[in-house]
């Protein structure tokens, strides 16, 4: 049929795109997993880096804990601020001027080279606020880095909430807070959580912002957020720079990948449970 063939190119386009995307994704993931999957053992996961140069034997336990700590701080801070900002802009901000100013500030800082963010964090958190080189400082910088990322997504999602539903709720004389709590969040929460999880992965993979503010080449697993820590991403960077055995490079990358996968998986599960209830 003529009609069918007319749209064949769309079918071809979308299938080819998807094929390409997933081919690339599987290639990268598969490549890393193939080369690094064999490394993943309890010893590798639970031991400290050893060997010569450092990291060419032993494990990456402190880096795993460090990465989780950095990411945890970053997500906690960024999601709190970003969700608040998005909610404020969508539901409370009355003035168009204010709105465009805030948007402007957010847009200008989104995609800031992370190295510059790192220097900024060094000045503000490490020096001025006296947090020192620590998980806290590094986490805060990562938080700033993912803030626009979360904010933009959450705001977009909130914008997709049906206007009619909001108006119906307001018309019942309930406050915005109540509407947000009972209707808006209920609808948007799964997507908000997945945005935060995605951002968490992004933060976990970032290197430049923490070089100046929190990451060190070697440390034990951090016991407080005031001490510096190793991080998987930075460890990876160091390993590559030092020319460590490739299986350790890929092994570290594999663990990083699995962690990110786990975070996203947990977010999805949470979203599903939340939607289902």
């Amino acid at each position, binding site marked *: 049929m003529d*009609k069918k063939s007319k*749209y064949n190119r*769309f079918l071809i*386009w*979308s*299938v*080819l*795109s*998807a094929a*390409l*995307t*997933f081919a690339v*994704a599987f290639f*990268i993931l598969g490549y890393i997993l193939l080369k690094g999957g064999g490394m993943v053992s309890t010893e590798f996961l639970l031991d400290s880096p050893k060997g010569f140069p450092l990291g060419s034997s032993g494990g990456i336990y402190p880096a795993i804990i460090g990465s989780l700590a950095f990411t945890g701080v970053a997500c906690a801070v960024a999601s709190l*601020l970003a969700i*608040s*900002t998005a*909610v404020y802009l969508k539901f*409370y901000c009355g003035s168009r001027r204010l709105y465009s*100013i805030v948007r*402007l500030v*957010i*847009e*200008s*800082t*989104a*995609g*800031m*080279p992370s*190295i510059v963010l790192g220097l900024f964090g060094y000045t*503000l958190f490490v020096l001025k606020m006296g947090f020192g080189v620590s998980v806290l400082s590094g986490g805060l910088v990562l938080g*700033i880095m993912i803030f*626009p*990322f979360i*904010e*933009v*997504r959450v705001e977009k*999602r909130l914008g*997709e909430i049906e206007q009619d539903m909001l108006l119906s709720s307001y018309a019942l004389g309930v406050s*915005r*807070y*109540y509407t947000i709590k009972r209707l808006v969040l209920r609808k948007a929460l799964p*997507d908000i959580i997945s945005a935060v999880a995605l951002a968490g*992965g*992004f933060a976990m*993979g*970032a*290197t*430049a912002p923490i070089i100046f503010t929190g990451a060190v080449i070697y440390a034990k697993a951090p016991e407080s957020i005031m001490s510096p820590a190793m991080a998987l*991403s930075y460890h*990876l*960077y160091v390993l*590559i720079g030092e020319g460590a055995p490739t299986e350790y490079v890929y092994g570290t*990358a594999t663990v*990083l*990948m699995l962690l*990110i*996968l786990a*975070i*996203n998986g947990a977010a999805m599960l949470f979203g599903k449970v939340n939607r289902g209830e």
Partner: protein
Amino acid sequence: MKRDKVFEFIIKAFTLVSVAILGFIIFFIGAESLPAFRHSGVAGFFTNERWHPMGTDPVLSILPMVFATVYVSFLAVVIALPIGVGTAVFLSCVAGEAARRLLKPFIDLMAGLPSVVFGFMGLMVVVGYFERHFSMSSGESALAGGMVLAIMILPYIISTCDTTMVGIMKSYKTSSDSLGVSKWHMVRYLVLPAASRSVLAGAVLALARGMGETMAVMMVIGNSPIFPRLLGKCETIPALIALEMGGAPVGSLHYHALFAAGFILIIMRFAVSMLVSHIKKGADL
């Protein structure tokens, strides 16, 4: 009710804090770049000379890097946008619920991979391929940067578009079906136009990310401060900053000049989003 006021106060306070921090970043970078601007004037950054921030007679022109930043990130968006939107269409309109649920996590996973890994693989695969097959003396090039960056921003484009497209499918599939048109007609004339905002938002987000991406790009473009050509080397502003920041003595002109480069990047990003919001207004639905 009291709780409302408290809630409003809290989120207002958080918004203020966020804006204050972000504003402070801009201020910080602005302040740190001031000595450099004072040294050679804003125009001094855009002359057709070489970047040479040290020595007795420093020249701070970053015109080639400005072009390279735009060039590489646009290249990436141009490569990634059709593929990303196509994949989003596939996920939301072609793949069933089960397939979607299976495939989507890979997209998220890709978004989370550290840029070092992309850079490393870009170096091994893309750059290596160019050297072997295009008889280029060295494979580092704007195209390699664009391709690596395209892969990195792909997940962002896909996930922004996908959410919206799924929503449209859910709301209008029945109405569309009842008009007796095929799914592909719906994709072409309903899903894509109605999602155009999201596509645009995705592209902007991706472009923003692209212009700021440091590590991966730096590893594959060769970092030569010359005007970009598709198969030639070039150097983006983030790469410039990342490369030289470690070696620039604090407080030196070089140091301030790097901040000035960062400031110019902010202005560029700002210009792009202004441009886009302008387009968006024009295409308003």
